[in-house]
């Protein structure tokens, strides 16, 4: 398990900035198809992101958190888990959630203010969590429940660098250490928590080293290198499923990366960070790096890229059409799913609400 037992301060890297394999790096063994699928998912993540931002700009969607720059970490990690392993995302893992099988149209519906997009029926994905770090104990609890049930599943929890400052990060990881749950705590360290840079978030040199406090492994990986992310995550998955003697199941992975865009569409990053910094990180853009790597391996060429590009554009177009053509939720849906059975008072409120709508009509009501 050498991948994980290395010094947390020594970042795992495979590809260099130009997509060449670094000297001495061990490339994970992946089928061509899977490599191409990873490429496609990264591309669709980037394209989806751009379209979503412009939907927001056009007033067709509410606030949206873009993820450009972070595709490598999301796609690399999601490919390392099995189909029935679980994902516990925050709010920025659009590509990972897609990789787990969730339709882009669902993600759009959610960001269009419709809870139904958060349901993801049938997929091993918990709804997005907005309050920072609060999903971490849930992930530990799910993993623990699964272990108690005698299953052999792995639970991957995503969160940001800022999240590591919250008490719930601490408590969730500490429980995982004590109860030895099959957990992967995957930190998307994108250098910023809105306007607060990583160095002001904690005085710890790396986030990976925080695992020391919980008695399990922590590892830092180049989060803009999907191969490195894949390798590290795969090792963590295997260990979670079947640790060797004296070894602990959980792992903290710090994937070092960068958010190219704004924190959300409501944010203006030029207020707090320099373009220079952005430009420097863009040189490590996971997509061209991975593209070069695949070209070098001879499994990707211009033609193939064009085909993929048209395919994903069509898929995103479709998703937008689907999301926008779905009926808006029925206003009375508010009153449903508060409890398994609607209490009398809620039913009375729904009744009064329906009468109000009848009396005024929706247009007058909301004017």
């Amino acid at each position, binding site marked *: 398990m050498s991948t994980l037992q290395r010094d947390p301060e020594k970042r795992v890297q495979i590809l260099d900035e130009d997509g060449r394999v670094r000297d001495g790096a061990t490339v994970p063994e992946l089928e061509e198809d899977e490599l191409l699928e990873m490429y496609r998912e990264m591309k669709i993540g980037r394209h989806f992101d751009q379209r979503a931002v412009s939907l927001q700009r056009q007033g067709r969607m509410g606030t949206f958190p873009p993820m450009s720059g972070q595709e490598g970490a999301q796609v690399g990690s999601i490919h390392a888990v099995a189909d029935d392993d679980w994902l516990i995302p925050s709010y920025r893992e659009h590509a990972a959630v897609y990789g787990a099988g969730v339709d882009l149209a669902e993600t759009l519906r959610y960001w269009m203010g419709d809870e139904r997009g958060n349901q993801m029926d049938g997929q091993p994905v918990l709804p997005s969590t907005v309050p920072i770090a609060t999903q971490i104990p849930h992930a530990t*609890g799910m993993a623990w429940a699964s272990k108690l049930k005698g299953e052999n599943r792995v639970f991957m929890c995503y969160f940001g660098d800022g999240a590591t400052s919250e008490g719930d990060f*601490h408590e969730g990881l500490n429980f995982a250490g004590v109860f030895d749950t099959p957990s992967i705590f995957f930190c998307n360290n994108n250098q910023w928590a809105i306007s607060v840079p990583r160095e002001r978030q904690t005085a710890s040199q790396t986030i990976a080293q925080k695992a020391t406090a919980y008695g399990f492994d922590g590892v830092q990986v180049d989060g803009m290198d999907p191969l490195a992310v894949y390798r590290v995550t795969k090792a963590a998955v295997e260990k979670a499923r079947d640790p060797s003697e004296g070894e602990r199941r959980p792992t903290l992975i710090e994937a070092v990366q960068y958010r190219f865009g704004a924190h959300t569409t409501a944010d203006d990053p030029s207020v707090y960070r320099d373009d220079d910094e952005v430009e420097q990180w863009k040189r490590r853009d996971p997509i061209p790096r991975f593209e070069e790597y695949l070209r070098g391996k001879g499994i990707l060429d211009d033609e193939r890229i064009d085909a993929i590009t048209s395919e994903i554009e069509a898929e995103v177009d479709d998703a937008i059409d689907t999301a926008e053509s779905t009926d808006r939720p029925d206003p009375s849906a508010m009153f449903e799913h*508060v*409890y398994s059975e609607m209490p009398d*008072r809620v039913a009375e409120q729904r009744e009064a609400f329906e009468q109000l709508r009848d009396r005024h009509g929706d247009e007058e009501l909301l004017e």
Partner: protein
Amino acid sequence: MSTQDQQSTTESLTLVQAVCEGLYGEMERDDDVLVMGEDVGKNGGVFRATDGLYEEFGGDRVIDTPLAESGIVGTAIGMAAYGLRPVTEIQFMGFIYPAFDQIVSHAARLRTRSRGRFSCPMVVRAPYGGGIRAPEHHSESKEAFFVHEPGLKVVVPSTPGDAKGLLASAIRDPDPVIFLEPKLIYRAFREDVSEEPYTTPLGEAAIRREGSDVSVFTWGAMAYRTVEAAEELAGEIDVEVVDLRTLSPLDTDTIVESFKKTGRAAVVHEAPKTGGLAGEISATIQEEALLYQEAPIKRITGFDTPFPLYALEDYYLPEAARIADGIRDVVNF
């Protein structure tokens, strides 16, 4: 009063023993039920509410956790979402606040957020209320916080029989239930309780004493005191005592019906007056039955001050005399 089978053998239990029996029965019935919290395992709970469970069901189902309330409730939410039925213990209600975010932001909302795909069949048990000479933060009764959060149910038993039956209902309930146990009466008296598991329905108040002059709505340890005060007033005033038992959802029907009969009411609770549930109940009554109202509804409550250290706690809690005087005020208005 409760659906316990009158035929089955009974045992004479205190309220805290009945809680323990309730846990035992549900854990036997359903392998998905587990108990977790600080000192609930080997130690059997600081009030012995989980006494013997660890020996019976082992460390995978009776779990001593690290000292972290958000961690306890947060991991339990994950377990509940994954199909288990965790019963968490918060050692004292005054220590529930570190878990407040997990309770209101997640337990209460998981069902809504996922449009019913996920639910959170979890119970958060906590000893609650004052009167046992405990240190600071050990005597709170802030049930109103939880009643104001849609998606939660809130239950307070006041008898051993109810404690067992309501806890069973809470555990079997598909939604998260905050289950507050009045520790002042944990061992104050015994009651014959059926040995078999049974449920007492949530959402139904119990009329502890019928009366025609005034309705007094209360719960927890104060239900007991209120009945005492009512007995003392008997002859002078005929008091109806309604033990609400479930605070969310409130049994508005029983409240309003009782009030329509008497036209006068008081509410007794330990929590501070301002923002306490007495306000909610009073407001509901005047909404539903103003035309029956013959006197202001009196709120007989704790004061709008932090719960004092124990030298003064007996003055803080509504005493039988304060309750009786309050009831007299309502009747003599």
